[in-house]
C-alpha cells in the first residue's frame, strides 16, 4: 500500500482546504485510488476478499480520518488568524452615557416624606401665590401685627375676588389653614414647598424651601411635639446622638411657642450635627420653629379649639440639606451649575426608603 503512505504524507503536507479536498478526490472520489481498490473487491474470490477486504477498508478509514483531522486543524488555524485580525483596543473609551441627578432639595423632600410617612404624616400642599388672609390673618397675624412687617413680604398689586391682597407666601404655614379647612381633624401632615422673603445676602435668598408639619388631634401636647422632632431629626441625620435644646419663643400662630436648637460640633471648619452643644468646639444652632397651635388658628381652620389641639413646626429644607450633606453656599442651590448638581445631586436610584435608609452615604 505504497499509495496509502503517499496519500497520508500528502494530507499531512496539505496547507489549504483546497489541497485537502484535492487529495480527498484523488483518494476517495469516484476516480480515486481507494474507490478503484474497493471496486476490485467484487471480482475477488472469497478467500482473496477475506484477506484484501480489511486492508482496503482500513486504508479508506485511515485516509478519511487523516483528511478530517487535517481539515479541522486548518479550519481552527484559519479562525485563529481571523480572530487575531479582529483584535480591537479595548482601552479605547466605550460610548458615553450622560449621568443625570436629582437636586438635593428634591432628595431631602423625599427623605422627609419617607420619614414622616412612617409616623403617619401625609404630604399636603398649597399655592405659593397666596392671599394675605391665609398667609397672615388666619395665622393670627392681623394687619398691624409687628410680625407682618418682619416677614419681608413680596406683594402683588392684585387682589382676589374677595378683595384680599395677593402676595408670595412667606412660609408654608398657610397650608395648615387650607388643610384644616379642607380635611378637618384629626390631621397629620407635612407641607414642603417654596417660600419667599424679600431678603438677599450670603445666607438668604429671596426664594427658599420650607417644610411645615401639623398635627391636630385630641390630647396632643408639647411632649408629643418634642418626641416628634427628636424622632424626625434622629432619623433624618441618621444619628442617635442628636440632642435638642428647646427654647421658649414667640410665633403668632402657636402658643406656647418653642424654638428648637440642635447641638453640633465644628469638625474641619464645618458644623457637624450631633451631641450636645455645650462642649468645646460645640454650639447650638436653631433648626426649627414650633409650638402648640394657637386656639385662634384652630378656629380660623374651622375647628373647635375646645375639642382639638395640636402642634405645628416649620424648618428650612435647604438648610437641612446643607447640614446633612455639607454644602455651604445657599445661592448655589438655585444656580443650575451642572458641575455643582453633578457633585451634590443624587442618583436616580438613590430613592430614600426605610429599609434601604433615608440618607445617601459617602
Amino acid at each position, binding site marked *: 500500500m505504497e499509495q496509502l503512505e503517499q496519500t497520508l504524507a500528502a494530507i499531512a503536507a496539505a496547507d489549504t482546504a483546497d489541497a485537502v479536498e484535492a487529495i480527498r478526490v484523488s483518494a476517495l472520489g469516484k476516480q480515486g485510488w481507494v474507490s478503484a481498490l474497493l471496486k476490485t473487491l467484487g471480482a475477488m474470490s472469497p478467500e482473496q476478499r477475506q484477506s484484501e477486504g480489511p486492508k482496503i477498508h482500513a486504508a479508506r478509514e485511515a485516509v478519511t480520518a487523516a483528511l478530517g483531522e487535517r481539515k479541522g486543524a486548518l479550519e481552527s488555524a484559519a479562525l485563529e488568524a481571523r480572530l487575531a485580525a479582529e483584535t480591537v483596543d479595548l482601552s479605547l*473609551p466605550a*460610548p*458615553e452615557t*450622560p449621568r*443625570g441627578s436629582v*437636586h438635593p432639595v*428634591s432628595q431631602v423632600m423625599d427623605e422627609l416624606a419617607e420619614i414622616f*410617612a*412612617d*409616623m403617619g404624616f401625609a*404630604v399636603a400642599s398649597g*399655592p*405659593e*401665590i397666596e*392671599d394675605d388672609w391665609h398667609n397672615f390673618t388666619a395665622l393670627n397675624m392681623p*394687619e*398691624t401685627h*409687628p410680625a407682618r412687617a*418682619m416677614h419681608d413680604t*413680596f*406683594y*402683588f*398689586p392684585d387682589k382676589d*375676588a374677595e378683595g384680599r391682597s*395677593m402676595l*408670595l407666601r412667606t412660609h408654608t404655614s398657610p397650608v395648615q389653614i387650607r388643610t384644616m379647612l379642607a380635611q378637618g381633624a384629626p390631621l*397629620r401632615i407635612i407641607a414642603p414647598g417654596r417660600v419667599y422673603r*424679600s431678603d438677599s445676602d450670603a445666607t438668604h435668598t*429671596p*426664594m427658599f424651601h420650607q417644610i411645615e408639619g401639623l398635627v391636630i388631634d385630641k*390630647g*396632643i*401636647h*408639647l*411632649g408629643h*411635639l*418634642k*418626641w416628634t422632632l427628636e424622632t424626625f431629626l434622629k432619623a433624618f441625620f441618621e444619628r442617635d446622638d442628636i440632642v435638642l*435644646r*428647646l*427654647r*421658649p*419663643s*414667640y410665633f403668632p400662630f402657636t*402658643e*406656647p*411657642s418653642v*424654638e428648637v436648637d440642635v447641638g453640633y460640633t465644628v469638625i474641619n471648619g464645618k458644623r457637624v450635627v450631633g451631641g450636645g452643644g455645650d462642649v468645646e468646639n460645640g454650639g447650638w444652632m436653631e433648626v426649627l420653629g414650633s409650638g*402648640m397651635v*394657637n*386656639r385662634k388658628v384652630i378656629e380660623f381652620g374651622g375647628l373647635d379649639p375646645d375639642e382639638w*389641639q395640636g402642634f405645628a413646626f416649620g424648618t428650612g429644607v435647604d438648610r437641612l440639606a446643607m447640614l446633612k450633606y455639607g454644602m455651604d453656599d445657599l445661592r448655589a442651590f*438655585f444656580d*443650575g*451649575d*451642572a*458641575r455643582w*448638581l453633578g457633585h451634590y*445631586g443624587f*442618583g436616580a436610584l438613590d430613592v430614600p426608603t426605610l429599609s434601604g435608609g433615608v440618607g445617601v452615604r459617602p
Partner: protein
Amino acid sequence: MKFSLSWLKTFLDTKADAATIARTLTALGLEIEGVEDASAALTRFRVARVLTADKHPQADKLQVLSVDLGDGNPLQVVCGAPNARAGLVGVLGLPGAVVPANGMELRKSAIRGVESNGMMCSTRELGLGEEHDGIIELPADAPLGTSFADYLGSDPVFDVSITPNRPDCMGVYGIARDLAAAGIGTLQPIEVAHVPGAYPCPVEIRTDDPEGCPAFHGRVIRGVKNGPSPQWLQDALKSAGQRPISALVDITNYVMLGYGRPAHAYDLAKLTGAVVARRAVDGEGVTALNGKHYILDHEMTVIADDAGVHDVAGIMGGEHSGCSETTTDVLLEVAYFNPQRIARTGQALALTSDARGRFERGVDPAFLDTGLDLLTDLIVKICGGEASEVVRAGAAPSGQKTVAYDPALAGQLGGVTMSASEQQRILAALGFGVVETGEHWAVSVPTWRPDVDGAPDIVEEVIRVHGLDAVPSTPLPRADGVAKPTATPVQALERRVRRAAAARGLHEAVTWSFLPEAEATAFADGQFAWTLANPISEDLKAMRPSLLPGLLGAAKRNLDRGASSVRLFEIGRRYLRAENGSSDEKLSLAVVLAGERTQRGWATGKAVAFDAFDAKAEALALLAEAGAPVENLQVMGEAGAQFHPGQSATLRLGPKQVLARFGMLHPATAKAFDLDGPVAAVELFLDRIPAKKAASGFARTHFAPPALQAVTRDFAFLAPLGVPAGDLLRAVKGADKQAIVAARVFDDFRGAGVPEGHKSIAIEVTLQPVDKSFDEAALKAIADKVVAAAAKQGGVLRG
C-alpha cells in the same frame, strides 16, 4: 436689646455670674445673641505713668517717652499724641497686645529710628468710645502696672433678642423680673419719689385723637441746665449701644431702655401755644430727628402745637423742637399710643425707632405716672430746675385682664406635670395675680403683658420658667400595622418623572420662580403674568409662566463656564391666574438640551449637536413615565412663537389637549437669552395628563405570550413631502387592528428614483397570528388593507 451686667444689677440683686445669667435668659425665651466683655480684650494693656517726654530727633510730631509700669524698669515708647507729657498716667499696650479697634498686634519696633516698646492708647483704640484726640488720661493715683481690664472692672454686656410679644422685656427691668422668677436673684422694687409740682403747667396739653393717643401726660421743668450726662448714665447707654448726647436726651433714653417706657422731651422755647395729640392733616410734613422730612396723612397721630407738627407720635420727635445744649425749659411727654396706629404709621413712613418698637408692641398703660416720676426725678437731680404740676390729658386703657386657667392645662397642653403651688409661685413672681375659684383659677394679667390673653399663654409662662427641658418626650400614638403610603397621585407622579429624567442623564435644576418681566412676557403666550409690586430686583420680578426661561438662563451660565453639553430639567410650578383672581399654579416639567449631544469621538467622528428628535425622545419618554397614553398622542404643530416654526411640535391627546411641546428654540429666543448655537427644549404640562382610573382587580391585565410566531412585512409608499410620516404610520397601523401589532418607519428617502416633491416612506409592519398561521390569502388581504389605508393619507405603494 443690649445692656450691661451692672445695669441689670441695679434692678436685680444677684450673685449669679454672666454665664449663668446668659444661659437662664435663653432658657426663658430671651435668647442671648452674644455676651461681650470689652475688658477681656484689655488684659495686656497696663496702667503706666509717663516719666519724661522728649522730642523725637527725626520727627516733629513725635515724642520719645519714658514710661513707668511701677516696676522700676521704665520703657522707651514713641508717641504721637499731643497730650503726651511727663506726669500723665495713661494706658500702655505692651508687645503682643491686640488693639481692639483694628485688630493689630503690637510689636517692639523702631519708629523713625527710635526703639518703641509699646503704644500709649486712646479711648477709641481700645474700643471704649470715639475719643481719639489724644491718649487716655487716668487719675494720677491709678495703680501703675495694673492690667487695664482689672482697672476698668469687668462689666459684660448682654445682647438679647426680644420676641415681638414681650414689650416688657424691651426694658432692663422687665428682663430682671423674668430672671428673678427663674431664681436668679431678687427683683428690686421701683422706688421713685414723686417730685411735686411747684407751679401749674404753663402749657396746655390735650389729646384731640383719643383713639390714636388715649393718654398724654406732661409737665414742664423750668431752669434746667443741659450738658453731658454723668458717667454712670453714659456708661449705661453705651452698654446698650446708644451714643450719649446730652443729659436731657440721655435721661429719656435711659428710662426707655431701663423700663421700656419711651418719652419725649421738648424744648419749651421752640413751642407755641397748646401741645396737642391729633391726627395729621394730609400733606403736612415734619423733619424728624434723623434729619429726614416726612409727609404725613390723616391716618397718623402727631404731637403738634400752633406752629405745626413736632413729633410723629410714638415714633420719632421733630428736629426743630428737640432739646439742645441751650435748652433751659423742657416739656416732658409721657403718652400712651394705640399700638396698631403706631405700626401702620411706622410701616407707611418706613420709619423705625426704639420708641416705635415699644409702642407698637404695647407699653405698660399703667406706667405713665411712674415713668413721668422717674424722668422728673432724674432731670431735677442731674440738670436741676423746677417741675410744674402734672397734666394728664385723656386716660390710658386699664390693661386689666383676667384669664380663667385650669392648672391641669400645664400637663394637658404643656405635657409636663407641675404642682399648683409651683405654678402659683412662678405666676406671682412674674406679676400675675392668682385667685383660686374652685377648679379654675382667675389669673389677673399684669398690665405690662399685653400678649397674655388666654389660658395657653399662662401655660407658656409657667413652662418657660419651669424649663422646657423638663417636658418629657411623649411618642405620638401609632396607627396599627405597617405605615400606610401617603403620597397623593400627583406627588407620586412628580417623584417618578423626576427620577426618570435623572435616569435619562438630565440634571435637575431649581431656578427662581420669578423672572425678568421681558422673559415672562415672552413665554406667557398671552396669559396673565403675575408681577411683583416690590421685587428685590428687576431680574426677579414676574412669576414664571413657563419653566423654560429659568432653565435657558442656567444653560447660558453653564455654557459660559465652558460646558460643551448642557442637559437640565426642572419640575415646578408655572404661575397662572384663575378667573376669580386667585392663583392657578400648574405642575410642569421642562428640559433644555444645549451644546453637543455627542462629543467628537474616536468611533463617532465629529461632535453632534442636539436636534429636535432629542427633544422628542425626552418628551415621549417622560410622558410615558408620567403615565400618559403615549400610543395615542398626535404630533401636531403650534408649539409657540418661542420655537423654530419648522422644527417644533406639540404632543396632543385629541386636537385641543396639549400635553407637551418640544423642538428647537427659535433663533430669536436663543438670541434673547444670549445662547449661541441650536438649543432643544421640552415642556411637559404634567397637570394635563389624565388621571388613571382607579382599576379594580389586578394591577396588570391578563397576558400570555402568543404561541405562533409573528411575521414582518415591509411596505414603501410614495407620498407628497407635506404628508407627515406619522400620519401615514398611524393609518397603516390602524389598517387591521387585530393582525397588526406594531408598525415602525424605518426609512425616509428623497432623491434619485423618487419623483420631485415626494418622498419614499418605508414601514415595517409586524403581524401577529392568533389561532392559526397566516396563509397567502390572509397576508394578501392584510396587505391590501394597509395599502388602502395609506392611500387615504396620500401614500402610494411603490412598485
